[in-house]
């Protein structure tokens, strides 16, 4: 049996995602809270502004004497102006905290005071509910709805009301097509090859962009956009996947969230579109690897038919010789235009147990 990776594309999924800090901090949500993509789930703050206070010199004593003049302990948090050290000699002297902060370290009569800081924030990245709190680290979020996983994202998150450029996503993104776009929407488009569209999308306050394909020369421009962009099929001009089109059409007008993160195999993260739905026969999300089976809807991940999608009509674990001369197990798929192709099984990802009924 041949196992390949899965990119979930399903209308009715139980979706669970874990959001966690890389270092212990504070969880800012509670059980049962409803969250949106840009909500902060947890934060961790680390002070980084460092000041070295020469206590010995400030008090006019030797470093060894300075330790006994300390009025505070290491680890204490002080406010600006607080007395830190005091010398009760003939001429009493004080050392006060120049800024508020934490007393971190002591060496040879000098004290390290830290303040300010860097924050690590973990955002929800989806519309959902907090189903579990992970103490000091993060939370587990849950929702039910349509899940469309992509293959590339520009590392942003957002949400908005979904609109499609056209019902088949065959129209390319063009300046002329954007006149009818309303402010603050989430847009699904078949293909984008014009960088000029991006500034117009920013002007329209676009909250996210879902693309079937993108011209590779626009990758840098896409990364720089302030709104999240998720790519579903590949770089280059690729016919839109009918399954994804159907799912997006069904959800037009709904509130959609995009988490356009990068792929993280360890954490299991993929860029994805989640559309919460209240009614439906919800199933558990597909596993990240599955065995190829007849009737599955698959996407070609490499080669001549890159990005195209179709139905598995035959597969073999025996080696097939391809035109390149390489032998490998193969799968025969029927594309949406009824053309049949044979591809190396390794060059496939499973999208769904089956294509949606016409």
């Amino acid at each position, binding site marked *: 049996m041949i*196992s*390949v*990776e899965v990119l979930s594309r399903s209308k009715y999924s139980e979706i669970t995602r874990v959001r966690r800090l*890389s*270092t*212990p901090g504070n969880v800012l949500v509670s059980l049962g809270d409803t969250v949106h993509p840009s909500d902060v789930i947890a934060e*961790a703050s*680390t*002070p*980084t*502004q*460092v000041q070295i206070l020469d206590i010995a010199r400030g008090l006019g004593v030797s470093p060894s004497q300075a330790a006994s003049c300390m009025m505070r302990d290491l680890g204490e948090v002080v406010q600006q102006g607080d007395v830190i050290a005091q010398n009760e000699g003939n001429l009493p002297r004080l050392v006060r905290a120049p800024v508020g902060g934490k007393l*971190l*370290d002591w*060496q040879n009569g000098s004290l*390290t005071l*830290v303040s300010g800081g*860097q924050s690590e924030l973990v955002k929800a990245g989806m519309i959902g509910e907090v189903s579990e709190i992970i103490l000091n680290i993060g939370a587990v979020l849950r929702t039910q709805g349509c899940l469309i996983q992509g*293959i*590339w994202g520009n590392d942003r998150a957002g949400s908005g009301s979904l609109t499609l450029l056209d019902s088949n996503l065959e129209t390319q993104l063009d300046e002329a097509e954007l006149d009818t776009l309303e402010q603050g929407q989430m847009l699904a488009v078949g293909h984008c090859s014009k960088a000029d569209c991006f500034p117009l999308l920013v002007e329209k306050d676009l909250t996210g962009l879902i693309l079937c394909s993108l011209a*590779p*020369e626009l*990758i840098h421009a896409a990364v720089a956009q302030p709104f999240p962009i998720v790519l579903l099929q*590949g*770089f*280059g001009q690729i016919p839109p996947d009918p399954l994804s089109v159907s799912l997006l059409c069904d959800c037009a007008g709904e509130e959609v969230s995009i988490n356009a993160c990068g*792929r993280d*195999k*360890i*954490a*299991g993260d993929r860029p994805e579109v989640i559309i919460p739905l209240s009614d439906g026969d919800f199933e558990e999300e597909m*596993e*990240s*690897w599955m065995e190829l089976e007849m009737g599955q809807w698959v996407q070609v*991940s*490499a*080669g*001549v038919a*890159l*990005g195209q999608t179709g139905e598995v009509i035959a597969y073999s674990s025996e080696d097939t010789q*391809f*035109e*390149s*001369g*390489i032998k*490998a197990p193969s799968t025969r798929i029927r594309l949406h235009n009824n053309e049949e192709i044979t*591809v*190396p099984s*390794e*060059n496939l*990802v499973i999208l769904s147990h089956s294509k949606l009924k016409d």
Partner: protein
Amino acid sequence: MVDGHPAINVLGLDLGRMNTRATLYGLIEGNYGLQGYGVAPTRIDPSSGLWMGIEAAVGSLQEQVDRVLLKPGSKRSSRTDPLRLRMDQVVSVISAGPWRKTALFGLTRGGSLRAGKALLASMPLENVGTYGIGELVNGQEIVDELVHHHPEFLIISGGEDAGAEKPVLAWVETARLICLLLNETTRPVILYTGNPRVAETVKRRLEPITKLYVLPNLRPEHGQMDLVPTQTVLDWEIIQKWQGTLPGWVELSSPQYHAVSTTSFPMSRMVRFLSQLKANRKVSNQIQGVMSVNLGGDSTVITAGLDGHSGTMMQKRWECLKREGQEAIVHSVRQWTSAPITKEEVHRFISNRTLFDRFIPESPNSLALSQAYARIQLQFAIKGFKNHYAWFNMLSENETMISFEPIIASGAVMTQAPTPGQAMLTILDGIQPQGITTIILDKYHTLPLLGLIGQIEPLLPVHLLASSAFENLGTVIVPSSEKPPGEVILKVHVQAETGKNYSVDVLQGDLRRLVVPSGSQVVLDLEPEPNTFVGFGEPGKGGRLKVIGGAVGVVIDARGRPVRLAQDDAVRVAKLDQWKSILGG
């Protein structure tokens, strides 16, 4: 029994980013050999975990060797169950884990920083910052950067033995500060590898607040590097960290199993061992090392050894894209693609390749593109290796050329190449070796495992290296001459086993293949022109070689170094195609 003591059976597991391999080693007709081999995709996502890949690979191996290696268990077990493996000895090498963030404090660019960077580049470590003596004044910036990056390891190097102390101690204070700022559970492990004179002070300042290793100086004297002790510790520490994060693998490192290591570390041990053997058998006037090259799914690893010393370089698959930029790489890949292809097609290919790990090139163009990118990866890795290890510049102190023989290569782009000639040509174009060498294909990626197994049973690697697990692609002779293209630079007189003798004139710019049946012996008398160097110590000096024919026969590569490609697209593609045809298509 082998040499009077009981023979062992060993199961080797190689957990790569893309594939998990299970290899069974044991006795075959009195010698150790590879009894079977299974491979399956590696799964490292939270739901399925590493064990699924291991189970599938061992299952595939089990069918081949007709032996039960897995005890019956639940069909879709996602828990690792070490008791299910019915083997006394299991060794594992792993490269599937994420690279660990590491920062380096040192002093001088040519000294401790150079040694430290070579160390970082030799292991799956992501360099998040390198700071030398000049940066000591930027304390606040360094703190900001490292708090942001949160390194898991911090290497403090600097000061030769009996050398600088004060700046090293200044770095120690910076390291202490960073540790105190970070949460106790996420403080970096510190490896102190500098001037041993201040080791006690280092321990006093750092041991109370974080895990500290005090290790031999990376740079004990000017011009010397001693990385192995620190690599040994890092190897162990990286494995510990991966155990904590890679799902379904933690039990595999239980005491039941003999050895676990990162993949590159035992690979360098094997190369060091082989280079020491070579040094012991040294033929006068020839300085030869040993090299191993792996073009893995996630990274390229080059290890080279000379006289018992070795260096290793690991680079992520798309490192050259990140460093050189998309445009430069698109241009370079296009230059090396033996098919008429536009810049846009190359750009599209590379952009999409970065999205998925797994890829079988099914068309001639996609094969040509993937082989071209493999060349660029190798060239970039060799360049990086030379930066870290000056001795690798293939010239000894007295300007005698150093060659590396054999060059042991592995990686799907070579082991799955449609013809052995294509595998050979990828290596020749990527590494561009000099002198006389033999290209060996490690078909089952077994070299790293042998580096581990050799600690249990030293004979096993020796037997395996002489077995069919390593395919001899052929001997390569690289004559080096300043003569213009088209002029004779070398005559080769061939005495075949069949008795058929013949001679070949090699012209400057030629790529020639002598068809020598695989496994049969030929004697080559090399007669270079006066200023042509062929690896016998000095220009113009010839010699006799007894070689065994490989899958490609014997190759004479007189294309010059570096290999230059025509600017004209049609001429270049025709030439690349011609070279491919010469080596068998």
